[in-house]
């Protein structure tokens, strides 16, 4: 009866420990018993090690008190069946390290997991794990993608690639801010390729997964499998490539993968939060290769597109969303599509909960915290006025074409503040400074970030302005 014994012991620990500690470390442990020992299963290695380190003596003591004579073993719970390679490979490698338990503990000891056996078994499991993933999200299709001015070019390019993979647009490099649909487009191409050829081996993954797979493969001595696998796909879709920055070994490995795929005419699609040349900590040869195919920006959606996105989402959930309610949400949530969808979810939850139909009143009610927050946020006007006053120049100077340092620097400070303190997109901020381009704003933000670290004057100015604008 291990569960009953463990429950008794656990109840005692619950009385002894603060609720938070109990819930973090003890609650997730599950008891199993076989002929030889009582097993305590922890959800991951971190919890297991922590419990082994901090609570093992007390647990051993308590179990002895209730008459448990067997050995008690702390193990890692086998992961729920999962499609994730990292999880599979992680589970394979999990028994690799011993839990840090000094051997000198009094009996009954909380020993660690069974000794790891390394070799072919793991390698073939890694191999299997590699074979099985494609990770395409089924509803990220072209059909579900809402076209607007902001993403027209990217959509056209993605369509081209879906029709002629491995052709002229290789790699297709999509870049832009967060939550604007880069990942959706990438999956849409993958799904389209899969539709026209169900046998096609399409692999989508986040750059972190590529890094993790490589590390795992190195650990398990399976780097050949890794190389073979990534070079054998028909299309490789890698998201958020900026996280390759400063990971030299991964870049090296990816560089070779890239060349092999390009040579073999296999399609690559990459996304990034910025233009390839602007990724710090990325090898030059990779940056230049990223530009060999087609590089397209995805911009934040305009109002009409945001409304269309909401209407589409609503109809997908078979939901009645009146146009004026959609318009109201779209007007207030400007930053990106992900947050727009979050707002819609909140409205739907309220509608379900109160059993009311969605209208503008319900929208206002359910989003009131979000909207109150926005109202508190600083306006562009206010930032421009405050900055001009601080530097003793005119607001008109900030809007002007003048480029002298005495005006240009305050303008950059104001732009950086606008990016930090408001929800406005880069193009919107650019517009409000006499119709400047969004790249100018981006440059200003980076420049000021850099100067805040190198110039104590700018650091001081920025801090003062931030304080006066937010209090």
């Amino acid at each position, binding site marked *: 009866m291990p569960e009953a014994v463990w429950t008794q012991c656990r109840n005692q620990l619950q009385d002894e420990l603060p*609720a938070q*500690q109990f819930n973090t470390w003890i609650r997730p442990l599950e008891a199993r018993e076989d002929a030889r020992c009582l097993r305590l299963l922890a959800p*991951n290695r971190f919890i297991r090690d922590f419990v082994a380190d901090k609570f093992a003596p007390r647990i051993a003591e308590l179990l002895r*008190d209730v008459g448990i004579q067997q050995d008690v073993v702390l193990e890692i719970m086998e992961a729920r069946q999962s499609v*994730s390679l990292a999880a599979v490979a992680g589970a394979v490698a999990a028994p690799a390290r011993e839990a840090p338990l000094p051997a000198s503990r009094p009996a009954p000891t909380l020993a660690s997991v069974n000794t790891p056996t390394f070799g072919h078994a793991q390698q073939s499991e890694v191999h299997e794990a590699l074979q099985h993933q494609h990770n395409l999200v089924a509803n990220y299709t072209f059909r579900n993608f809402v076209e607007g001015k902001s993403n027209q070019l990217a959509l056209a390019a993605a369509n081209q690639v879906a029709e002629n993979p491995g052709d002229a647009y290789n790699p297709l490099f999509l870049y832009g801010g967060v939550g604007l649909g880069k990942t959706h487009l990438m999956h849409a191409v993958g799904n389209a390729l899969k539709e026209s050829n169900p046998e096609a081996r399409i692999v989508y993954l986040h750059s972190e*997964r590529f890094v993790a797979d490589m590390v795992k493969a190195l650990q398990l001595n399976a780097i050949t499998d890794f190389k073979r696998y990534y070079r054998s796909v028909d299309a490789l879709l890698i998201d958020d490539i900026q996280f390759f920055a400063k990971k030299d070994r991964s870049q090296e490995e990816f560089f070779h993968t890239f060349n092999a795929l390009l040579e073999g005419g296999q399609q690559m699609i990459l996304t990034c939060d910025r233009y390839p040349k602007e990724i710090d900590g990325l090898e030059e040869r990779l940056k230049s290769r990223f530009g060999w195919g087609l590089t397209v920006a995805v911009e934040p959606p305009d109002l009409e597109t945001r409304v269309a996105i909401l209407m589409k989402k609503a109809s997908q959930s078979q939901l009645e969303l009146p146009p004026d309610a959609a318009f109201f949400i779209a007007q207030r949530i400007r930053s990106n599509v*992900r947050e727009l969808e979050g707002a819609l*979810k909140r409205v739907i939850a309220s509608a379900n909960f109160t059993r009311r139909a969605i209208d503008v009143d319900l929208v206002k009610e359910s989003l009131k915290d979000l909207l109150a927050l926005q109202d508190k946020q600083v306006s562009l006007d206010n930032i421009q006025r405050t900055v001009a006053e601080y530097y003793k120049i005119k607001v008109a100077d900030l809007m002007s074409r003048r480029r002298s340092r005495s005006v240009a620097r305050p303008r950059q400070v104001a732009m950086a503040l606008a990016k930090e303190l408001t929800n406005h997109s880069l193009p919107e901020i650019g517009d409000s400074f006499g119709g400047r381009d969004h790249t100018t704003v981006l440059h200003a933000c980076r420049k000021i970030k850099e100067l805040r670290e190198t110039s104590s004057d700018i650091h001081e100015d920025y801090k003062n302005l931030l304080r006066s604008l937010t209090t």
Partner: protein
Amino acid sequence: MAALAPRQLFLNLRPRDDATLENFLSLPGNSAALEALGSGGEDQVYLHGPADGGKSHLLQALCHAAGPGALYLPGSAVAAYPAEEVLSGAEGLALVCIDELDLLAGREDWEQALFHFYNRARESACRLCVAAARPPGTLPLELPDLRSRLAAGLVFALPAPDDAARRAILSFRAGRRGLRLAPELAGYILARAPRGLADLLAVLERLDQASLAARRPLTQPFVREVMSW
């Protein structure tokens, strides 16, 4: 072992006044969140609000309901450890709750690890519930990718309980312990106990134990005597 005195064994038989969904009082300010969490329909939920709004209680209660394998990670307990290790493999679980996110925000290692964890969790259908004092929009995050992902799920504000709510919670929790608290006595306790909900409920715990030990019902003189008010 001296600690296992007969009195404590006896106390162990009482129903626990635990952080469970049954022990959470539904109030107008939190009922929508409670329903969304309880129904399990949405796989990404973010709770925010001041202390005493019930964020930690709800996250712990979800883990309790999900059984072993659900993970509750409060920022204060895990911030000192390597973020990647803490979250490693957790996407294979059915539920991960991250409390006190404020304490992890602004830390580059934690933000990156949380962002990657979010992506892995989405791919493996791991439910992710998060709580912080501030909403995603004003949390001092450095990584916009993480902010937009946090804002993509269901976001609920949980208000701090006002006096009426504190009174309702006190009576409710007393009732869950099988104690009958007369309205005047509840008023008496509320007027004297500390304002924080945790401290208020600690008073209740103390009174409950004293009443059991002394085999006396809760009356105003008894409460005054136990609490030295």
